[in-house]
């Protein structure tokens, strides 16, 4: 495992009465593509701005490469940021935009010219040197913003919802572009987004945040398959989340029916949250299912059908490539390893728990 590059220790930040980050701890490894994921207002952008040096934490430290950079000015940090709205300098040409940081560092003109050419090639915008930012499309501007940041050879690139303003197709193209860039450059990316699909596609590590707390840290697969609490489960992808009772180890009672599962150690007859992903529900013949229900809605989604099945007075969301017409009586079957059991928060405060790694 590569070394820790950034260590965020006990960082708190509030704006007025609004506590945005609460004693947050997190480390980022070299060459990692780490995504801060969460709904707006969860503190992810504030965390990024603390890393960039645009905000100072009220409490706590930021260690970068072994040095405390908590109160170092943004222009003295070996980080570069790609801003949400690109923030290109509209009165400068593309070449001048890209050269901005290099000129400050007093690099020779020939070096700068090489870098401009290299960076434009990297983002597939060769020949755009003399254009003005306003004459470029959103996606092109975004790529220039990235080019402008990476020519400075930062150790870490901070990206603040860089694809937020782009349309779907462009966004997907740019996702691949970013992964390619990250691999070519071999530097650390810290990426902020509220789009779970973006996070799942690109990241090595996802940090799910809510209300100033980290909810879960893990690989995209971990986060998707093993959400640690209802918030993560709900936020990542579609899920069926049920109030359930852990009858005993490896047996959980959902909507009054016992389902075998693989989880242990929750005790006997304890209330828990059970999560079942819609694509993990198999619709079978009524007599083959653990319980029976009636199909109430069907929508064709392209890759699969999205269906709602009413069983024991609960709505079950099901994704399947096989279509069952509305009104069909079906059986519901879930494999034991597809049921994710989570401890129920005992109070409202605990809904947003701080998780230590």
């Amino acid at each position, binding site marked *: 495992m590569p070394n820790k590059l950034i260590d965020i220790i006990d960082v708190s930040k509030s704006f007025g009465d609004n506590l945005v980050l609460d004693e947050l701890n997190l480390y980022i490894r070299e060459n990692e593509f780490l995504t801060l994921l969460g709904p707006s207002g969860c503190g992810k952008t504030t965390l990024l701005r603390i890393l*960039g*040096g*645009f905000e100072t934490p009220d409490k706590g430290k930021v260690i970068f490469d072994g040095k405390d950079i908590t109160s170092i*000015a*943004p*222009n003295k940090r070996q*980080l*570069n*940021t790609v*801003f*949400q*709205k690109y*923030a*290109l*300098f*509209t*009165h400068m*040409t593309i070449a001048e935009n890209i050269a*901005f*940081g290099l000129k*400050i*560092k007093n690099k020779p003109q020939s070096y700068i010219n090489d870098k401009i050419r290299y960076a434009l090639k990297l983002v597939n915008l060769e020949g755009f040197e*003399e*254009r*003005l930012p*306003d*004459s470029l499309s959103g996606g092109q501007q975004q790529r220039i*913003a990235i080019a*402008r*940041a990476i020519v*400075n050879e930062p150790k870490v690139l901070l990206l603040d919802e860089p694809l937020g303003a782009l349309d779907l197709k462009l966004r997907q193209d740019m996702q691949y572009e970013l992964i390619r860039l990250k691999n070519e450059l071999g530097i650390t990316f810290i990426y902020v987004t509220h789009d779970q699909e973006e996070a799942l596609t690109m990241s090595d590590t996802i940090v799910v945040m809510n209300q100033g707390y980290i909810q879960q840290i893990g690989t995209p697969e971990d986060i998707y398959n093993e959400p640690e609490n209802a918030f993560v489960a709900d936020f990542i992808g579609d899920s069926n989340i049920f109030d359930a009772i852990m009858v005993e180890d490896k047996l959980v009672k959902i909507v009054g029916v016992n389902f075998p599962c693989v989880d242990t150690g929750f005790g006997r007859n304890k209330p828990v949250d059970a999560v079942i992903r819609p694509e993990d529900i198999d619709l079978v013949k009524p007599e083959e299912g653990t319980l029976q229900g009636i199909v109430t809605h069907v929508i064709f989604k392209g890759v699969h059908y999205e269906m709602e099945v009413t069983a024991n007075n609960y709505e079950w969301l099901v994704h399947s490539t096989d279509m069952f017409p509305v009104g069909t009586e079906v059986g519901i079957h879930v494999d034991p390893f597809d049921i994710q059991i989570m401890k129920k928060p005992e109070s409202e405060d605990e809904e947003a728990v701080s998780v230590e790694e």
Partner: protein
Amino acid sequence: MKKILQNIYLTLIIIFLYAPIATLVVLSFNDSKTRSKWGGFTGKWYISLFKDDAIMNALYTTLIIALLSALIATVIGTAASLGIQAMHRRYRTFMMGVTNIPMLNADIVTGISLMLLFVACRFTMGFSTILMAHITFNIPYVILSVMPKLRQTNKHTYEAAMDLGASPVYAFFKVVFPDILPGVLSGFLLAFTMSLDDFVITHFTKGPGVDTLSTKIYSEVRKGIRPEMYALSTIMFVSVLLLLILINMNPSGKGHDKARAEKTMSNRRRFGRVLMTRVVPAVLTIVVIAGGFFYASRTNISGKEQVVVYNWGEYLDPQVIKMFEEETGISVVYEEYETNEIMYPKIQSGAIAYDVVCPSDYMIQRMIENDLLAEINWDNIPNIKNMDETYMKQSQQFDPGNKYSVPYCWGTVGILYNKTMVDEPIDSWSVLWDEKYKDNILMQDSVRDAFAVALKYLGYSLNSTDLDELNEARNLLIEQKPLVQAYVVDQVRDKMIGNEAAIGVIYSGEAIYTQWENPDLEYVIPKEGSNVWIDSWVIPKNAPNKENAEKFINFVCRPDIALMNFEFITYSTPNKAARALIEDPDIRNSEIAFPSSEQLADCETFRFLGDKNDAVYNELWREVKSK
């Protein structure tokens, strides 16, 4: 059809808006000095304008003040905008309101409050106070034009620059400033124009010897506007027009015009950029620095002995000032006023300490009564011996015992008539009530002058305070109204020269000048008697340089100097030695300039009648004018 009507309407509006300016421009090329006659095309007013030291000095002061105040206001205003923009929304709205108020405030209120503040802080009124005042009223205009630009700029560009390694200052000038530059520039130009344009605030905050174009032009008005002023106004109009075109052409539409942006860095843009970043600042710097030296060289004398003279507009030969400075080494700070009533409050408030002032008779009386004058030490004025005793005696009407005043100019009020337009010799005020001359009569548009005519015609004193007499005079004036072509002040001169009227009430000094221009004109002091007025030098009580003031007064009493002034202003001189030096016997013996004592037998000077009686006069005059 609709189209034609639209065009006609548009043409009418444009004519309505620009006809006055067109008239001004045309007159600035008129060879004749009067407004009513076209004497052929000439550029001579422009030439003499540029030769006139006083006007060029005022022009330069105006430009320097406009430039400096606009520059400083732009810096302060831009900084203020940045601060306001960074504020919490609630305070921001409040601050914007606060900064907008001075702009909506009436100029006169701003002017007076600034003057009061400067007086309270014991600032000496002068160049610096005008500059401070202009900076003050310019700042809101800068904020108003910078704020919208600042609001439009992407907040993150500044952070992006810092992120790329720029220091905050570098980031501001490289990234934020170019974004708001169009706003800053139009703020600067707006401030410049406002400063160029301002009269009221300058008027209240200026000190002696400093004049901007607007105050200069205003002080010229008393003697009738000189054609040089038309030329100057034309130049100002053209300059403001050019400035406005510049403001509207500044490169702001960048982002809106995709097609233009697409052309990458066109030559025009490059040129514009070089112009904005190199040429304009360089030119501004040179002008300011050169101007600073220029101005300093002009005002360097301030450390030396000086005398501050406050006189009527165009009431002293400028050559006299130069001679006085050369002979005595005392520098003269010279300022002009337009009417006694404008001069009086300035002296009374003590905001500016003047050394020598030249008020008229009744005003001297009022100033003596209000203890505003210092007694003159006659030992220092040996040249008083040149003065004709008659006028010293006349002066006693308002300055009993000749303690405070030295006569400078005097004259009478009489009738000017056109010999070719009247049948009989005129010798009485009665001609002003003669139906024959209906619509050919010009009356003075001022309360005391008009009532003096009526009171004298009725055989009363022109200082009458008897209500019955005054009512009688009022009725007489009302009766006269249908016959009068116009109630005017300065225009009597021009209209009479231009043969526009047959008879006019006029000051004797003007009469001599009109005769030079139109030999058909004749002046007479009516046999019922008239007003004889005297303007005299006095020294205010708070004069800081009383001895220099006395030297100055003594100097203008010297026969050769008095002669120079007489030839310059053409108003009668009370200096008998100077009169003896007049070469042209026609003028030396002119009955207009030097009427005999018989002619003056029934003439009186105006006296200050007290505030209450002033109010009575004004009320009666109002009744006349509104009937």
